[in-house]
């Protein structure tokens, strides 16, 4: 790939400044920055909530909170981490990087883009407001059903459930708007000469994600709306007494919920190979194989949903089908791992912070994937299901596979976005603290699950005491380490060593041809890709 040079020009009509700049902006970089900032804040909020949980679980007996409040923290932690931390981070990167990577001046639908973002803060408020209302004696707090909303518990629940339903609606609309924008941008605004099969991998990851979002968010929206009408308008979709079925909700929820995990991960799988090729100083291996694997995983992800509730009872053929189809996902995933490792193989590697995070990410996400393969076994899942084993498993995929991937991306692109180098020493310290305390937090949870500790319990029997204590201490180290990350980002935005345009010795792709930071309007003249 080679490109024509782009002149730096930042003229154009004066755009508003101050708060109005951010409220009305249609600039993809401004919107990307807002998404990323929002994501970081919510990551800290969700993290504080779960540290409350880990403090309570530090030892047996209830010390800090009532069980009801405990349940609220768990569910809201998950909704915030998934919908307000991980997804907006991926969307933030999409906004920043997709136009830069495909040589476009901006996203295709800039106003829609602005809306997509500004729906997020209200939904975060909706999610957390019931906590505050409860302090004033209104309602009994936030959603206490876990993030899965299962009826009939969610039908019994208080106003927190309604608030969460509306929050999910707003978040869903935001995601669908963002997805439409990305699809339209990718199909229409690529630089001349950039065929689909020359598109950067990150763009491919997002393209599949966007299709998955558009396919599954409406199902979630439908399901929670049915819940809302069951709660308030006398319908009986999920109530056996009226001819409904509580398990129907689980089918609808996980028809969204399983693809959701790939929605969270595909963007990361997109930029991980880009980081790998940069720091291995050789082009990524198996571009086509990776693209086809993305498609395969996208397609499989919508047909395996019932593995999340094997113990709800299903006919044997259905159990077998969902078991084998789930196992099948390991094949395209193995292709990806193969390509990632082959990209490093016989490269000329150096280990700056983004690369450290990426290598750590491959290993930890690998543990998440392999334990997932074991979970597919229906009979053994009767034991694993809803135990701490599952909690450990999905944190290897979501925290390691999701958040740590995003962190790799932040360190990778921060110099491009701000024009300054971050503090490498602090970056490395952040990596090692995160990786070690993450493992110390979640490895004990595998053993807790095997020993029989159910998830979502506020207090536990004494045989679980030791591992919970280790896990809690490590979780606090993990939480505190993130302050280094925040400090590093802020000080990089404020100043620091000037970053070159290419930033990394081995970096290739259109985004590295622009200045650091890039001009307000990215490519005013379209580059030509050969």
């Amino acid at each position, binding site marked *: 790939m080679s490109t024509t040079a782009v002149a730096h020009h930042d003229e154009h009509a004066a755009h508003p400044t101050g708060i109005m700049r951010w409220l009305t902006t249609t600039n993809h970089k401004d919107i990307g920055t807002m998404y990323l900032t929002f994501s970081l804040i919510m990551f800290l909020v969700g993290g504080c909530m779960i540290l409350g949980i880990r403090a309570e679980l530090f*030892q047996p*007996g*209830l*010390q800090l909170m*009532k*069980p009801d409040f405990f*349940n609220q923290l768990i569910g809201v932690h998950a909704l915030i981490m998934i919908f307000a931390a991980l997804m907006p981070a991926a969307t933030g990167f999409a906004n920043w990087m997709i136009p830069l990577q495909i040589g476009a001046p901006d996203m295709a639908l800039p106003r829609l883009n602005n809306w997509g973002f500004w729906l997020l803060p209200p939904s975060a408020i909706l999610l957390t407001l019931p906590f505050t209302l409860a302090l004033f004696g209104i309602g009994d707090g936030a959603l*206490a059903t*876990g993030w899965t909303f299962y009826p*009939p518990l969610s039908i*019994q629940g208080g106003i927190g459930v309604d608030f969460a339903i509306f929050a999910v609606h707003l978040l869903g609309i935001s995601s669908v708007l963002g997805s439409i924008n990305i699809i339209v941008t990718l199909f229409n605004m690529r630089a001349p000469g950039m065929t689909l099969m020359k598109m950067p991998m990150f763009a491919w990851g997002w393209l599949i994600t966007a299709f998955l979002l558009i396919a599954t968010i409406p199902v979630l929206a439908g399901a929670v709306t049915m819940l809302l009408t069951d709660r308030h308008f006398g319908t009986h979709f999920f*109530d*056996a*007494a009226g001819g409904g079925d*509580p398990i129907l909700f689980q089918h609808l929820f996980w028809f969204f919920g399983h693809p959701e995990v790939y929605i969270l991960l595909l963007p990361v799988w997109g930029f991980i190979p880009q980081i790998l090729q940069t720091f291995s100083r050789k082009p990524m*291996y198996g571009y086509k194989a990776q693209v086809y694997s993305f498609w395969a995983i996208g397609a499989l992800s919508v047909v395996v949903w019932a593995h999340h*509730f094997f*113990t*709800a009872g299903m006919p044997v053929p259905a159990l*077998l089908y969902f*078991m*084998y189809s789930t*196992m099948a996902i390991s*094949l395209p995933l*193995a*292709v990806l*791992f193969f390509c990632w*490792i082959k*990209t*490093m*193989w016989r*490269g*000329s*590697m*150096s280990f700056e912070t983004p690369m450290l995070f990426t290598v750590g990410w491959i290993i930890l996400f*690998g543990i998440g994937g*392999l334990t997932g*393969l*074991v979970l597919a*076994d*229906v*009979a*053994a899942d*009767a*034991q694993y299901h*809803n135990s701490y084993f599952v909690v450990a498993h999905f944190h290897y995929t979501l925290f390691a596979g999701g958040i740590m991937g995003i962190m790799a991306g932040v360190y990778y692109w921060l110099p491009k976005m701000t024009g300054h180098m971050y503090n490498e020493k602090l970056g490395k310290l952040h990596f090692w603290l995160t990786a070690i305390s993450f493992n110390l937090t979640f490895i004990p949870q595998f*053993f807790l699950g*095997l*020993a*029989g500790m*159910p998830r*979502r*319990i506020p*207090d*536990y*029997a*004494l045989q679980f*005491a*030791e*591992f919970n204590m280790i896990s809690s201490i490590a979780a606090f180290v993990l939480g505190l380490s993130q302050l280094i990350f925040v400090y590093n980002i802020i000080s990089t935005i404020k100043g620091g060593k000037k970053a070159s345009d290419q930033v990394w010795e081995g970096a290739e792709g259109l985004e590295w041809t622009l200045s650091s930071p890039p001009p307000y309007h990215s490519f005013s003249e379209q580059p030509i890709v050969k």
Partner: protein
Amino acid sequence: MLKQAIRNLSLSLFFLLTSPRVFAQYSWNFPEPVTPMALDTLHVHNKFMLIVAAIFIVVLAIMIYSLIKHRKSVGHQAVADKAPSTAVEIFWTLIPFAILLLIDFVIMGIPAYHSVVMMEDTRNESDMVLKVTGSQWRWQYEYMGNTEKGNQNGLEDAKGIKFVSNLSTPQEQMDGTITPVNDPERPYLLDVDNRLVLPVGAKVRILMTSTDVLHNWWVPQFGSSRLAVPGFIRETWVQVDKAGTYRGQCKELCGKGHGYMPVVVDALPKEEYKAWVVAQKEAISEASAGADKEWTKEDLIAQGKIVYEKNCAVCHQVSGAGLPPAFPAITGSKISNSPIFGEDGKYLPDSHLDRVLNGIRVMPAWKAVLNDTEIAAVITYERNALGNSVGDVVQPAQVKAARQ
């Protein structure tokens, strides 16, 4: 509040670190299996874990080799990849995927298939049927009787026995007033008032249902767990092959008491099981005799206090103050202070007896859970204690009549 919390934390930390017994309890794998299902699960789990651990280590080793050898700082120059082109290269590229295919669908897939078939075979060869009902936040067990095969095997028929099983850990240990007591006989949070009793070696078909929200009946050493869905019957089975006491918990989030509905099962050898069944049946006939006699107010109140604290206090609180707005107070409540019976001697709709028998919204119906004496006693208690003093009594015979 905060001060107390800090004090508790440091006290318990001290306790945990200095108590050798506590530190001896953790484990690294599934607990000892005691049913064929759990044994199978343990084997499958161990095997799969070894396989995935092997995959992990091999791949990690390759990666680490590369991380050490192929780094810039040791002067390694990047060597461009080329796509596999010759037949041999393509063969070697495909080998890992062939191995994975084999692992997924043969080495793991075939044993998994057999386990599923075994797990779902709840009816064949079963000796007896047990109904398990989950309610917020207790389990109710009802023996539905023997199958043909159970009778042939000379299993004592327990049909008709039913009871409720509640957590029995003292409140002050749970709310942090005192540190949880480490008593192996009555483990913290894993002990109940009435244990489920099952005969050793008998295949028990379990019918699972719920009266309110989803619950999940789970004993780790049994290897089976099944969701209890209100309005539906789900099935599973256990066959406990070793006498002993086994403990588990609800594992589907079911509200604020989710962490507080343990399962405790006593597996007894056939003879002891028989003795237990006989004793239970005697108690049932005594209770129904008790239902026909006239009770004094004092006896009813004394009995009612026990019933209340076992069954009602989770929601309405021991003091009767409730937890408004979710759970109303009994003290001074309209229903507990207004008449129960109308002119014709029948109970009134929305009266105290109606509410307790039939429930409404979140308030459970107790008619299938408590017997006549217990219902009469708890109502009498609520009306004449907890700050109420209506003065009347409800006799078991009246409850019996009301059920018709």
